């Protein structure tokens, strides 16, 4: 079947939110080329467990496509229509299983040397329907370096050109200071899932999760989900057959129910999000640093938080892959390696949050825990500069944010 033959009945098995959305946009879906229609359906299928920002974003993209002038639309989808797609993929049940179609199509595009053409076409299409929304002011705080020796190594090198290096941050009761600015910024919006505190270790005791619209999660709090994922991974590696693809397929086939995410949260949106942090990634199952970075990335792309606090903790020491699968509760941590992981992670968070920020409305601070050093990037923070004045966090944000 091809998209032009889609009917409203085809979406009867979809959850209510997705079904309604698909029917509302049926004409647009029918006009999409085979190569990209399932990508839209994949998002529509899980609309009932998507963050509000994801729903709005999909709505805006679909509206933008519907309002494209006919000639422009034809020009944008033409490269997709020139891709050859095997008949068996078209004949597969891509309406009900769009994720499988996308996986299979991706493999086919690589093997048939069409991946570059697809990539180029996708970049042009999404540039044409790019969200022009004026985003609210976002505040991102990244904390890392706990227990690490920081002398002798230049810190924050990737971020220095982006903001002011604070060398004399007054860090007395820093958790309290951070809670204060988190709460102050969160007052601007009480929408659900607008503010997040993610910790790679035992979280601070301040009640971030009780701030209206805020969610607080930590690596230890999701330990049961992680261990169930590790058990599934170990099953694959000890099975004696298959490989990376099988492992990926097994993981992505697991849902919140399989991982018993209901034991962590009753919210179906969060249950799916927490599940996918482990089933659609590589790294978070093993390393808390990867968990924090990946969670920040996924939040920026999906929940689009107004306030985001990411705190890294020392990750486990590196061990052989299979050993790490077997021993979910390792002995020994690597603070210095974690510091380097987190520095890169902080840089990636800055990139991700910059993508969803309007000009002048993106304040970012990365603080090296246990030191008085931080980088602050904001509308009044000239890149590559340094401030040696003793400042409390709130005052630094007021001055440069």
């Amino acid at each position, binding site marked *: 079947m091809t998209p032009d033959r889609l009917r409203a009945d085809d979406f009867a098995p979809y959850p209510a939110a997705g079904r309604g959305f698909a029917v509302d946009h049926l004409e647009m879906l029918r006009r999409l080329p085979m190569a990209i229609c399932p990508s839209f359906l994949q998002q529509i299928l899980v609309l009932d467990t998507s963050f509000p920002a994801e729903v709005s974003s999909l709505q805006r993209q679909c509206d933008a496509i519907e309002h494209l002038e006919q000639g422009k639309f034809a020009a944008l989808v033409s490269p997709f229509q020139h891709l050859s797609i095997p008949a068996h993929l078209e004949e597969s049940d891509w309406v009900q299983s769009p994720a499988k179609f996308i996986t299979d199509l991706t493999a086919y595009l690589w093997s*048939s*040397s069409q991946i570059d053409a697809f990539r180029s076409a996708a*970049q042009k299409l999404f540039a044409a329907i790019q969200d022009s929304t004026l985003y609210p002011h976002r505040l991102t705080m990244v904390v890392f370096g706990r227990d690490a020796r920081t002398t002798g190594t230049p810190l924050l090198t990737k971020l220095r050109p982006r903001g002011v290096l604070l060398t004399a941050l007054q860090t007395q009761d820093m958790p309290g200071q951070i809670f204060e600015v988190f709460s102050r910024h969160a007052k601007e919006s009480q929408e659900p899932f607008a503010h997040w505190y993610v910790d790679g270790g035992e979280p601070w005791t301040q009640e971030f999760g009780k701030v209206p619209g805020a969610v607080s999660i930590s690596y230890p709090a999701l330990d049961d989900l992680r261990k169930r994922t590790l058990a599934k991974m170990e099953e694959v590696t000890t*099975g004696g057959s*298959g490989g990376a693809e099988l492992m990926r397929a097994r993981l992505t086939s697991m849902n919140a129910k399989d991982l018993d995410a209901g034991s962590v949260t009753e919210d179906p949106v969060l249950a799916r999000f927490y599940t996918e942090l482990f089933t659609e990634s*590589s790294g978070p199952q093993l390393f808390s640093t990867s968990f924090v970075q990946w969670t920040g990335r996924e939040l920026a792309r999906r929940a689009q938080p107004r306030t985001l606090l990411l705190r890294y903790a020392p990750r486990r020491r590196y061990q052989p892959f299979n050993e790490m699968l077997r021993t979910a509760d390792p002995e020994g941590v690597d603070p210095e390696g974690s510091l380097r992981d987190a520095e890169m*992670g902080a840089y*990636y968070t800055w990139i991700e949050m910059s*993508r969803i920020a309007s000009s002048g409305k993106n304040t970012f601070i990365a603080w090296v825990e246990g030191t008085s050093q931080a980088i602050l990037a904001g509308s009044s923070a000239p890149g590559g500069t340094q401030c040696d004045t003793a400042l409390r966090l709130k005052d630094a944000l007021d001055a440069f944010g």
Partner: protein
Amino acid sequence: MLSRRILSPASISRSRREFLQGGLGLISASSMSGFGLPMSRRLVAPSPKTILVTFGGGARDSETFAQEGQHNIPHLLGELLPQGTFFSQVVNAGILGHYVATASIITGTWERFDNFIAAPPPNPTLFEYFRKGLRRPSTDAWVIAPSNGFQRIGSSSSAAFGPNFGAGVILPKRLLSAALHDGRHDSDSLAHLLQDNYEMPVYQPAESEQDRELHLNMLESTLSVSVADFVRHAQTLDSADELSIFITGQLMRQHAPSLLMLTLHDMDIAHAGAYSLYVDAIQRADRLCAELWNMIQTNPEYKDRTTLYILPDFGRDSDEDPAGNGFQHHRTGGALARTTWLLALGPHIRQNAVVERPIQSIDLVPTIGCHLGFSTTSPGRCIGELL
């Protein structure tokens, strides 16, 4: 909003060139004339040997030859590059999976088979061209590869070639696993040498007693090292790549093969998202390349007659590419993931030179063929600067 800047291969190459010329005072290809040795010296040169090292894992510019990455590769930059020719723009236009990309390098053809299935490449390999074309014995071509998936890379399924002309394949982890099987050695202390990662998970291979016997036999007859000595030496090593270099040295001493390929794979730990481990592995690969060059120069069978080629199979995703997650993977197909470099050293190779024009990773096989005197059916082109 952040602009979504997509790097072009030319801009990647330019950034490498600017750094290399600024930092090392290298000469460019356009200023060179008369690559290679005079004909009179070629006529009296001893039979050449070739060693090819790939970085299976992909390494990005930003952690290697770009200015910000230079501290990770002091040996490649300070010791090896001044002795060789550096190609700053090597394009991989194929599938960015390690096994299939390595197969493409050694067949000189963009292979399209499933990266995750250990199948022989359909097109003839460098080893088959070499052995058939030059009538070389089976002991003259070897592959040392760390991962289970590479066991079929020594020969193709081509009807005109095949295993009878292929290379011997040594999988160091399999050797170690076989050596540890009898339970007389402390396998826990060596587990770090059996490491693998998300892209190549180690399985409990259903090895038969016969398989183990074959591996142990390879240790003792091919590498001339007892199980006890092998395990003892392994206990002094830090990683799978170090084990591969140890076996390379042993092979060079015992058989002095004319054609050897080695894949360093530690850096693919990047898939776990731990930047520090990825960089550590790059630094280790840098050191091991220098050790290998030193092994070449101190072994009379190899000294002054060996060409060493070093290249990553491809790069990794750009930090700025919204389709990826930076260094962690190589899934976007973006320019940074497709563009890498090649460093060649040897008696006929121009020293201290940079070549900026783009070449492809499939060009290496026909180039080696042109140099050693056998033909190939690769669609790649001979790299003139290396002949």
